[in-house]
């Protein structure tokens, strides 16, 4: 029989763990965004070395499965004397990985900015860094918002993989409950539903943000 009682009983715990899922994934997207901006700027720079490093970075982190990246950071960091907590290593890995995807997304955004807007900023005397942070990044974000939101939801899903390296979050807790209660179907379906709701909420909030951008455009 499909046991709804076990769902109701374990729901508070699962919801509690989902807070960690949200924290880990959003933190990694925030850090990844900074990495992505940097990599993107290098990729679009005139420096040949910068472009090569950016290309290598994007190619590597998009070319290796995230699970393998997580295993490397989990097993290999201690080998080089870096004993960080597994959650920190995991979030760092998520950030590095999403940074590669975000760099590619932002690249499209940067290239979509009308050059006249940058020239105008240069003519009023903004520095290179100011142009990047005050003009280019905000415009690129507006241009690429749907892709950025999509990447964020991808990271919420991808964060389930950090359960494999022992970090307690929604998937890991679901596993623990499933093995101790022997009712995996109910528990995993519940966990899946929670992920679904989290991503639904992110998409909804983003649509509000997009609407506020549209107001800007109208004004």
């Amino acid at each position: 029989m499909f046991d709804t009682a076990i769902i109701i009983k374990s729901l508070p715990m699962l919801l509690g763990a989902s807070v960690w899922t949200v924290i880990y994934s959003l933190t990694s997207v925030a850090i990844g965004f900074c990495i992505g901006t940097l990599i993107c700027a290098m990729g679009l720079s005139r420096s040949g070395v910068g472009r090569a490093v950016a290309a290598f970075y994007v190619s590597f982190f998009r070319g290796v499965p995230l699970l393998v990246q997580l295993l490397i950071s989990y097993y290999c960091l201690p080998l080089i004397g870096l004993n960080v907590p597994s959650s920190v290593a995991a979030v760092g890995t998520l950030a590095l990985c999403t940074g590669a995807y975000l760099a590619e997304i932002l690249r499209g955004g940067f290239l979509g900015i009308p050059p006249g807007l940058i020239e105008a900023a240069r003519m009023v005397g903004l520095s290179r860094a100011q142009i990047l942070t005050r003009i280019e990044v905000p415009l690129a974000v507006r241009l690429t918002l749907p892709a950025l939101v999509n990447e964020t939801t991808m990271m919420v899903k991808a964060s389930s993989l950090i359960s494999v390296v022992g970090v307690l979050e929604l998937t890991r807790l679901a596993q623990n409950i499933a093995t101790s209660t022997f009712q995996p179907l109910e528990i995993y379906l519940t966990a899946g539903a929670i992920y679904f709701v989290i991503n639904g909420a992110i998409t909804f909030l983003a649509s509000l943000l997009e609407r506020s951008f549209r107001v800007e455009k109208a004004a």
Partner: protein
Amino acid sequence: MSFNPAILTDNWAAILDGMVLTIVIWAAGTVIGLAVGLLVAIGQLFTNRWVAAPLTLYVAVMRGTPFLIQLFVIYYGGPFFGLDLSPLTAGIAGLGFYGGGYFAEIFRAGFLSVPPGQIEAARMMGMSRFQIIRHVQLPQMLVIILPALANMTVLLSKETAVLSVITVNELTSVIQSIGSTTFAFAETLLFLAVVYWAFLEIVTAAARRLEKRVGRFTLRGQH
């Protein structure tokens, strides 16, 4: 930190088996995913809402939940429905149905990209729904959606690594077990990363070439 490549050469047979299994899983998952995706897209677009609504929910769930959780539901939850699947079967089915959700979206966009006037013309010529899909819509949209299909196929190859979590003996699982028995994590895991990376680069380059060839073919027809 020492680095001993002999660990890899000593276990080359097992590693090779893992690689082959990874490619088999990838190919099978892609084929299932393409078939599921095409059928789901057709069901969403060309039937009534009682068929379309559940299919739309299916797509949303596949795209909105982690692949790992989907695997757990199929593998650990399967027995609840009398489906006692082996890890490999569950993994391939999981990969296929996961990919199917994404492929469905691509096919759907493809169907919608064919101008409605062309379908009206085919209807006026008395072609059946199936003939219109087969002879008017698919040939045109495949060219348009090929990059997206190729991209998704490449993404699926990376997801095969997740099957190691439900103990499928594909490459990641083989390497991990070598690593944990020999404690040679650096050698094994870096090797693993390089193999996937090289594989992805090759597959991506092949996809680009295919796109270019098809693009040239359609230049004749399109412009």
